[in-house]
């Protein structure tokens, strides 16, 4: 059996005086993993930790064989992160330019850049909006653009932190379909949407900064719902 894509051993994260994650040990091998839990349980910190946006205070962490604290730049080339607020993820003035911005560091030949941007926009249904001002899009279109900007780099791992939080049902469904489709990437999805979590292969449950459940969606969601019912 191959090594787990994500491996944490006794990982702790301390922000200021608060231990936001404590003694976290887990191996994640499933292609799609949902992370659930109440507000303040440590889900987003976990996502930021995996994305190399914050560093652990203790323990060992390996993401696709990379230690984010030591090889952050390499990790970022291989992963993509999608946040809940699309406004903060859009950098460039038009849709096409914003998608192309994600490939800027690769210094691709113009023809290849145009081809990859075009293909990505087509995949996310943004071709008609290519020349539209990015910030004038609807919330759903903005989140699709943010997702397109993340996926155009063909990441091996996508970390999505409540990507459907601000969206209506139709747009939430479209974003979810793109995230969950098997396009050669793994997914770690932080969500409060239990129906969406149920569609993942594995679910992680956090409470009070600690891991309290890891397993099949049905089992872990039932465990969470029992807690919510108390």
């Amino acid at each position, binding site marked *: 059996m191959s090594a787990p894509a994500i491996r944490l051993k006794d990982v702790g994260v301390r922000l200021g005086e608060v231990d936001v994650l404590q003694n976290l040990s887990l191996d994640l091998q499933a292609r799609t993993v949902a992370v659930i839990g109440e507000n303040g349980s440590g889900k987003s910190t976990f996502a*930021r930790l995996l*994305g*190399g*946006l914050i560093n652990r205070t203790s323990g060992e962490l390996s993401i696709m064989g990379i230690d984010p604290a030591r090889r952050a*730049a390499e990790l*970022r*080339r291989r992963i*993509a*992160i999608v*946040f809940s*607020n699309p*406004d*903060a*993820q*859009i*950098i*460039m*003035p*038009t849709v096409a*330019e914003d998608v*192309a*911005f*994600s490939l800027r*560091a690769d210094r691709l030949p113009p023809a290849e850049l145009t081809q990859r941007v075009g293909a990505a926009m087509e995949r996310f249904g943004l071709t008609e909006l290519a*020349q539209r*001002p*990015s*910030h*004038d899009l609807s919330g759903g279109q903005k989140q699709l653009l943010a997702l397109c*900007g*993340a996926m155009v*780099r063909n990441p091996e791992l996508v970390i999505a932190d409540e990507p459907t939080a601000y969206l209506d049902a139709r747009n939430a469904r479209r974003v979810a379909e793109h995230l969950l489709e098997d396009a050669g990437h793994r997914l770690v999805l932080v969500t409060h949407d239990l129906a969406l979590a149920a569609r993942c292969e594995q679910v992680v449950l956090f409470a009070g900064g600690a891991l309290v459940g890891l397993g099949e969606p049905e089992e872990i969601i039932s465990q969470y719902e029992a807690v919510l019912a108390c």
Partner: protein
Amino acid sequence: MLTLYRPGTGWLHRMPAGPKLLLILSVVLVVSLLPAHWSTAAIAALVAIVGYTVSGLGPGLRGIRELGHQMFSLRWIMVITLVSQLIFMGPEPAVANTARVTAAIVLAALLSLTTRVTALLDAIERGLRPLERLGLDAARCALLLTVTISTIPVLGRRAAEVRDAQRARGARNNPQTFVIPFLIVALKHADELGDALTARGVR
């Protein structure tokens, strides 16, 4: 991002971003250095009109209509500049300086009206590259400029949200109660933007 770019095929649109930046900068500089005389107001106005007419922004009077649109969006800057200088400096310098400032801004706008931000970003990066020998990170400077401009409309929208939230709670428009929540929102946006840039592979 402030989306001023208007798609087009005129000669100014087709001109490479670097030379265009230098050309427009030179015209703006000349207008800015004119003396504070009545004739300056006429020259500044004429340069702006000619600039918009010959820039190939579109068929017919499209250029002049665009100039009118730009002037309308500058109306308060023009009023404040004119009135304050009328009070302290008299009519001739007030009119000349207001005309110079207005002409400089609308001429500079020709750059953003006819150049995609990506092309401008590339041109600035290329222009700054010789300074890399002195330790300057050209790519980062160009990106800084882009992100700064892109943040303006987002913060404008956040400011409106803060004002709406205050009105919803019965508060009047009050700068004192506006500043702190707006600062918090702006700092939060800065944090999120930093994360997003990092997530998109920017060092």
